[in-house]
């Protein structure tokens, strides 16, 4: 792994192409463009590229994406969190029960949901930092513990595992769970900017900007990379690695719960069903986005491109004439190709930089 890519955000005059290759998200961006063109072509007949068509995969991507970014942070820090599969429903049912059962204000319910998730993330972080048990195992355990708690608490408190959550206010609907469209101009020459995008898409954008700031702009983004690069050295350098790790687990748990809450508000129901699929989805997005599984390397932009690519492949097959059974095969192939491509880009950057050194 002898890499000499450029750091985030650099471009030196005369070497702009090379500088571009050195950026960690270049592979993910190239992959996204290829996949987009592929499905744009094969899905043309069935409106893949229309505003409505785009919304199908963008809405799906936004929910995976909100969780994928903090999962990416954890992976950069050298950790994994698979308990998110149980935290998505946990967020939904805590919100639903807070509002329907305990008569709370919806925003208070959201706060309670985030607090509960933050607590679970805190437990994950404490277990990982105190015991040195790999986070895969710790969060595998909490995945099942939380899944069990979801079902048990639902039954005990509400007598059901399917909660309803009635509309409770225009603002909360608008922000958390609604469909949004933007059409410019009048009847004859109307331009549809977007159509039927869910609130989660906009939450994803805001969240991504905040996360970009944390990882790449704020001084402590550096700490996450250092921790994943060499945890002992990072600790010796005075970086509070344990506290940072706990914070990252809290962030991923809260992001997952937030997704569950947006789903509950949108669908007016919340279920305790554990979303095992989302565990894989988020990891795929992060890895396709060029984050190194072994830690120390990755970007927010890469994760976003990875998520978009995954969203297209996951949903795009419905717009083509390909057999739907091929969907999983496509996703597997995508993962393989993306990983190989990211590796190639890294190596390419290395050689490019060494020739320049002389």
């Amino acid at each position: 792994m002898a890499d000499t890519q450029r750091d985030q955000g650099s471009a030196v005059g005369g070497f702009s192409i090379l500088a571009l290759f050195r950026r960690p998200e270049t592979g993910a961006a190239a992959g996204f463009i290829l996949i987009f063109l592929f499905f744009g072509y094969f899905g043309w007949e069935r409106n893949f590229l229309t505003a409505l068509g785009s919304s199908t995969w963008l809405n799906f991507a936004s929910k995976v994406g909100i969780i994928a970014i903090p999962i990416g942070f954890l992976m950069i820090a050298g950790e994994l969190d698979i308990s998110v599969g149980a935290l998505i429903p946990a967020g939904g049912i805590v919100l639903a029960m807070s509002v329907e059962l305990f008569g709370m204000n919806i925003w208070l319910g959201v706060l309670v949901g985030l607090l509960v998730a933050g607590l679970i993330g805190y437990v994950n972080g404490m277990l990982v930092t105190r015991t040195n048990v790999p986070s895969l195992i710790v969060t595998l355990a909490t995945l099942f513990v939380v899944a069990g708690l979801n079902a048990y608490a639902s039954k005990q408190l509400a007598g059901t595992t399917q909660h309803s959550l009635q509309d409770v206010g225009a603002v909360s609907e608008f922000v958390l769970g609604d469909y949004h469209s933007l059409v410019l101009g009048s009847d004859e020459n109307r331009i549809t900017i977007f159509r039927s995008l869910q609130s989660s898409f906009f939450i994803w954008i805001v969240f991504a900007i905040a996360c970009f700031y944390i990882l790449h702009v704020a001084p402590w983004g550096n700490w996450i990379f250092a921790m994943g690069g060499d945890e002992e050295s990072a600790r010796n350098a005075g970086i509070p690695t344990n506290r940072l790790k706990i914070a990252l687990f809290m962030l991923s748990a809260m992001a997952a719960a937030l997704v569950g809450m947006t789903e509950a508000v949108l669908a007016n129901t919340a279920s305790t069903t554990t979303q095992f699929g989302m565990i894989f989805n988020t990891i795929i997005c992060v890895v396709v986005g060029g984050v190194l599984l072994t830690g120390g390397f990755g970007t927010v932009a890469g994760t976003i491109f990875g998520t978009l690519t995954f969203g297209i492949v996951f949903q795009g097959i419905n717009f083509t004439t390909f057999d739907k059974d091929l969907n999983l095969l496509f996703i597997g192939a995508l993962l393989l190709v993306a990983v190989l491509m990211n590796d190639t880009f890294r190596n390419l950057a290395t050689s490019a930089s060494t020739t320049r050194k002389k």
Partner: protein
Amino acid sequence: MPDNATVLEMRGVDKSFGPIDVLHEISLKVNEGEVLCLLGDNGAGKSTLIKTLSGVHQPTRGEMLMDGKPVNFVRPKDAQDMGIATVHQFGGTYPLMSIGRNFFAGAEPTRGWGPFKVFDRRKANAIAVEQVRKFGITGIDDGDRLVGGLSGGERQSLAIARAVYFGARVLILDEPTAALGVKQAAHVLRIVNEAKRRGLAVVFITHQVMHAMAVGDHFTVLIRGAIAADFRKGEKTREEIADLMAGGESMADLEADIEGYMETHEGHPPPPVH
């Protein structure tokens, strides 16, 4: 030569990891403007001692004083905040991070206001490149390069340059010359002397007699976690130091060997033991 003011002191420090006792009754002083050479065989406890000085480990018993006042370093940051900078024996750099980000890991320069602080990449890169080039690593001119592409010695130089830059009062170097070429090693020794001249207290660990002799004012030899010898520059010959560094378990034999060697070799001492 009178003792300079003591900056950092250990008094009767023991360190155990569970049932394993690593340090016994360590008392030593690190003085301003002096280099304390910590010598000893592999596993003698040198790294454990300096990790205790730099806040990575806490003493099991005994106390540490800085400027005569008791201090308790709970974490490395506490030691850093008091001007103690350490280059540990292993690691210290992050291969997939840029030179500038490596140099400032944990102490990032920022610009901007309030909670919206921004990592000052340009400043970090400029300072990092300047400091590393001062070490004779002139091949580096781009702070955005990832450290993974540097050689082992270049990475080591980066770690040392970083400590020299941040070490305001005490500089602790754990085998800093181990990975370095002749030129860079000589440079580290020059840097150590320069730090000493500026009044810093330096703790220097090495397995090379030449390097120890070149910079040391004060020598402390650890054998199996206890201080076996403690002497000032000029109080022992190079041969004696070499033997102590070899573990000192059979000092008499070693001395006899040396005498025997010198008799059969027309009074020449044996080559230094590394």
